[in-house]
């Protein structure tokens, strides 16, 4: 059996890098990307990090710094980030036989048994160069015999510029040296709270945890932390997952740009979330039986009256038809709606999924000849047409219940995105202009 070898490839300042790629005028400028509704900082360019702008800080707290340092501000442009992410992942798939997409900007490569003329560091440098050249995104690469160590190697590659963005931790001595330098809560899956408990036991560095007795750790914590100890010692315990596990639930929710106070507006929002969730469900090729609707006021606004509620309902048969899901969601909303509140957020969750053809059909729903209360085939045809049209451009066909734009051209419940960059790579009207 060949030694297992994993690489973790992680994009540097991913959202900020996506924005910068298409704006040569911002090359040297500090840049931040904001969360939904332009609330908090979710990504920073290296210049913004150097200025001490913290992750997660609300935008209103740094107004002064933004002006003082001429920091460029962007709303989250998920269309752009998703497309750039797909480019990075696709390129990685050309370089390694097995790729596990771990998040929008991270992927594990399984290099076990790969016959290569390059050593690990050279391979890492090649990944870095090709991803940079092809997509314009800079990545760091950590290589090690376990996923947990590969994560740590990547962390080191990011932290220490002398590594030139690649750290190979195949060597046991190098592993030990790095583990000694890193605090225990930097380890994948440990986090702050678990880190605190470990520190109370005298386990401060990553090396302390690696040297801890696995059985002892299992008794005090869990089998998961025990597995981490083994992984830190070079024993690969965490499986490589090429295919993402099937989703168990789908949530579509948004904070409102402006508070919503009327049932009509709330209906439109819930209708839109339901339609979006149904679209995702069809993409997963699943049927859902349970739909949950939730609404709430802002917990940060203590002076105003507070209300939050959610309600779940069951469909008679699992469905992926937007119309079934919207109808049920609106019925649920009308049960929990209360007048007189300024709502800040609402959402829809689908759960209890079925594969096509696995569920018990409703006797009224379907007859052998395909005719029923509403033909299953007709539903399939309508939904696939709907999805096909909408794939060509976002939301060309939508349900009347989602509402149409008011005179000012916007709906108050739509997300606030005042600093949105163009969809440079996914919309013909937004492609780059060159002189």
């Amino acid at each position: 059996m060949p030694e297992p070898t994993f690489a973790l490839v992680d994009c540097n300042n991913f959202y900020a890098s996506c924005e910068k790629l298409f704006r040569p005028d911002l090359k040297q400028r500090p840049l931040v990307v904001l969360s939904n509704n332009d609330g908090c900082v979710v990504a920073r360019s290296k210049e913004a990090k150097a200025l001490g702008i913290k992750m997660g800080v609300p935008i209103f707290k740094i107004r002064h710094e933004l002006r003082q340092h001429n920091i460029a501000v962007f709303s989250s442009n998920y269309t752009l980030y998703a497309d750039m992410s797909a480019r990075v992942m696709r390129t990685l798939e050309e370089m390694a036989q097995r790729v596990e997409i771990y998040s929008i900007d991270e992927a594990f490569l399984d290099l076990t048994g790969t016959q290569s003329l390059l050593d690990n560091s050279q391979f890492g440098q090649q990944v870095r160069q090709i991803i940079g050249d092809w997509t314009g995104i800079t990545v760091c690469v950590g290589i090690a015999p376990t996923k947990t160590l590969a994560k740590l190697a990547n962390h080191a590659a990011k932290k220490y510029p002398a590594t030139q963005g690649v750290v190979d931790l195949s060597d046991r001595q190098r592993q030990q040296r790095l583990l000694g330098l890193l605090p225990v809560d930097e380890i994948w899956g440990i986090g702050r709270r678990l880190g605190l408990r470990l520190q109370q036991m005298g386990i401060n560095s990553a090396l302390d945890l690696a040297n801890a007795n696995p059985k002892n750790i299992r008794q005090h914590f869990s089998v998961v932390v025990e597995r981490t100890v083994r992984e830190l010692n070079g024993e690969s315990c965490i499986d490589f997952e090429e295919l993402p596990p099937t989703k168990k639930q789908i949530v579509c929710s948004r904070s409102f740009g402006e508070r919503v106070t009327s049932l009509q507006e709330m209906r439109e929002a819930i209708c839109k979330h339901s339609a979006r969730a149904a679209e995702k469900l069809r993409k997963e090729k699943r049927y859902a039986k349970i739909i949950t609707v939730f609404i709430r006021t802002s917990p940060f606004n203590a002076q105003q009256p507070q209300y939050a509620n959610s309600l779940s309902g069951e469909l008679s048969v699992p469905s992926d038809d937007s119309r079934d899901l919207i109808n049920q969601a609106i019925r649920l909303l009308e049960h929990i709606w209360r007048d007189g509140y300024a709502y800040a957020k609402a959402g829809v969750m689908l759960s209890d999924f079925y594969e096509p053809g696995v569920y018990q059909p409703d006797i009224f729903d379907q007859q052998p000849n395909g005719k029923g209360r509403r033909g299953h085939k007709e539903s399939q045809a309508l939904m696939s047409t709907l999805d096909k049209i909408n794939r060509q451009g976002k939301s060309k066909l939508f349900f009347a219940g989602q509402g149409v734009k008011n005179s000012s051209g916007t709906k108050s419940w739509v997300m606030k995105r005042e600093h949105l960059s163009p969809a440079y790579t996914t919309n013909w009207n937004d492609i780059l202009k060159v002189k």
Partner: protein
Amino acid sequence: MSVLLVRHGGSAVHIKNGYANIPLFREAVSAGFPSPAEDYIEQSLDLNEHCIKRPAATFFVRVQGDSMIDAGIYSEDMLVIDRSIPAAHGDIVIAGLHGEFTVKELQLRPRTCLMPKNKAYSPIDIPEGSELDIFGVVTHVIRNLRQK
């Protein structure tokens, strides 16, 4: 002489004596059209296959201006950019210059410059020792001949 040729957002390629050191990562590319299937299913021609060798590295831009008309590139033309191609002498490239993107011919000999293809414009010299941001190499021009 030596000029640092920088892939915009990517790595740097050193040019020595006017020649770029081209990275050696060119895997075999299946160019052209796929072989016909065993059974004779009707196959439509896909323009993407013809113009796009590496989708992950391909970007589109629109031209504004007339500095490249002698190279057959007009205002409002759409250009296909392939970032996987290392820029070489004589390539039409997209470069980031003074904070904006420009399309020009890259010349590395006898000295590095961005050459417009229109006599009304002068070449843009890239001073020795400076950085030149290359976004990518232009591979195709797409123009609608009726809608102008």
